């Protein structure tokens, strides 16, 4: 086998410049793909992290039917205390879950006593919320080591604060309609301003969960949703499936809804678009490898027709001739992939030193990408290129193996 590889290598190097150009083209393709994968993957992960770590958690649990009415924040579809206790028990038993936090959500009227507007109020358990959304405290100005907020305090979205000229320490009032139709209101002290994730438009205010229940006159500790943070986002879909199964109440019984972040956030579409673009770039790479290697191997066969006739005449089995040309294609793929991977690792290392940054959103300032390559990405791209190289060589190799020795020996 080693001898065959040596012969194949010598055959490739008889047109060294052409071989190097082809391998170089493949290497550049691999470099482009892996760099794109590293940068787009980094961007995607960073963006997903922004949403899951500061807004919605990795997955959410609601009462069945709640998500379909999400825009109305229906109070009659809260989780009952018994259901919340059951969800807690299931979450506590799941080893993939890092933290969870209950939220009571409702729509209300926000007023600074001179003007008012609508607001979406999140009643939170500050300590649990910070554990599930570790980036949320960073969005609150001013920062407070004591926690996100205390009972009687409110975090006001930046849009409202700017528009209504509300400052930290001001007293504001939140008014809402309860489940029974009565109206209730309460004053709060502005503890901080919450910057929005992606520019103006956010209307989420935060108060303590007990304040929320008080305003809503909830006699029992109901919960609108449970935010869940996983130990690893890689387990998202498995955990969602496991929780759905564990929380299933059986046929005809009220059940829970469990949704991953990708079911709830519009950014999931962007993430899927990034995956689609990555696939598209990979297809281009495959095309480059396929066309360039097939071109080289077809030329190799036509240039060596007499030689093929000779080796066929001396008794070389057709399968061995096929193998020789396939090894030549394989070597081209291996060289191109190896050089491309080496260049990609070097480029990613350089990007770690010279950071890639850009502005994203209003409050977060500059986002710094940390491109990295997963072993699985490297192996996938390398294997795809090598397999494509062999496939591209298959037709020329087959042609060489099937060549009639007499015609080949006559070829000028």
């Amino acid at each position, binding site marked *: 086998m080693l*001898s*065959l590889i040596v*012969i194949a290598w*010598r*055959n490739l*190097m*008889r047109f060294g410049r052409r071989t190097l150009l082809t391998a170089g083209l493949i290497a550049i393709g691999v470099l482009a793909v892996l760099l794109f994968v590293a940068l787009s993957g980094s961007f995607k992960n960073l963006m997903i992290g922004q949403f899951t770590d500061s807004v919605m958690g990795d997955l959410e649990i609601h009462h069945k039917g709640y998500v379909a009415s999400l825009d109305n924040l229906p109070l009659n579809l809260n989780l009952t205390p018994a259901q919340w206790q059951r969800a807690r028990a299931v979450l506590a038993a799941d080893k993939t879950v890092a933290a969870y936090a209950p939220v009571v959500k409702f729509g209300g009227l926000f007023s600074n006593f001179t003007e008012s507007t609508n607001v979406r109020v999140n009643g939170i358990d500050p300590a649990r919320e910070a554990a599930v959304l570790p980036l949320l405290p960073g969005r609150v100005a001013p920062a407070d080591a004591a926690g996100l907020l205390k009972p009687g305090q409110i975090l006001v979205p930046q849009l409202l604060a700017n528009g209504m000229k509300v400052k930290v320490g001001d007293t504001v009032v939140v008014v809402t309609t309860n489940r029974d139709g009565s109206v209730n209101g309460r004053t709060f002290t502005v503890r901080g301003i919450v910057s929005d994730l992606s520019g103006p438009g956010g209307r989420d205010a935060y108060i303590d969960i007990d304040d929320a229940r008080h305003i809503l006159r909830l006699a029992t500790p109901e919960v609108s949703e449970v935010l869940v943070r996983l130990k690893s986002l890689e387990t998202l879909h498995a955990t969602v499936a496991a929780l759905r199964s564990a929380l299933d109440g059986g046929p005809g019984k009220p059940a829970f809804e469990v949704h991953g972040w990708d079911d709830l956030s519009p950014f999931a579409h962007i993430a899927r678009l990034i995956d689609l673009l990555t696939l598209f770039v990979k297809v281009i790479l495959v095309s480059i490898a396929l066309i360039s290697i097939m071109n080289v191997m077809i030329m190799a066969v036509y240039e060596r027709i*007499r*030689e093929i*006739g*000779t*080796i*066929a*005449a*001396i*008794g*070389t*089995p*057709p399968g*061995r001739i096929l193998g*020789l040309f396939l090894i030549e294609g394989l070597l081209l793929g291996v060289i191109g992939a190896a050089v491309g991977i080496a260049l990609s690792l070097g480029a990613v290392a350089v990007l770690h030193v010279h950071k890639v940054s850009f502005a994203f959103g209003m409050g977060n300032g500059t986002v710094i990408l940390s491109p990295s390559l997963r072993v699985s990405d490297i192996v996938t791209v390398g294997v795809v290129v090598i397999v494509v190289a062999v496939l591209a060589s298959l037709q020329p190799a087959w042609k060489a193996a099937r060549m009639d*020795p*007499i015609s080949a*020996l006559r070829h000028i």
Partner: protein
Amino acid sequence: MADIAFAEAHAAPVIRADTVEKRYRVGDVEVKALKGVSFAIAAGSFVSFVGPSGSGKTTLLNLLGCLDRPDGGRLTVFDTDIAGLNRRAAARFRGANIGFIFQDFNLMPVLTVFENVEYPLIMVQNWPSRRRRERVMDMLAAVGMAEQAGKRPDQISGGQKQRVAVARALAPETRLVLADEPTANLDHDTAYKVIDLMRRLKTELGVTFVFSTHDPKIVAAAEIVFRLEDGRLSREGGPHA
């Protein structure tokens, strides 16, 4: 038929042709390249086929080398009816029994002299490395090319290339060597040396050599000479001419 009788009388025939025919179609015209050729060649013979261009020499050598199949008659090589060999079996048969020497040497330009001789032992015989090395060095020594083992074909002369081709043909312990115009691209002196070398190796190794030529001086070196003319064979020289 007298030649068949001669071969049967003296040694088991390596090749036996009985009214062998071969036809080609050129456009709408059918050309009869061989018209009922019969002969036999005994083991260890040094045989030449002579004749003008287009007489059917190469066609006959292609048949003997199992590169082609006859359209009529019966042709056996080492008691194997070559008409019954499919493509794969023919390749296996050639690899096991027959060596080829070509007019244009047909050495692999990217391989050294050593590697060219080793080539059939890798590609066809799949011998282990140690056995290959020993056999290649023996063959190169036999053709006087051991000193040039590391050179590439473009670094040696035409005569040396043909010596390497002879070594390559003999390396897999072949019993029959077919050479189509092996001296056509060599000057006279070199051509005689190559033919002398082939004849010496025939004697030393007991291999049967069959070659075609149109050079009368080269023909003189053959023990048995068959003349091919317009697809018909006649015995021209040799012990029973």
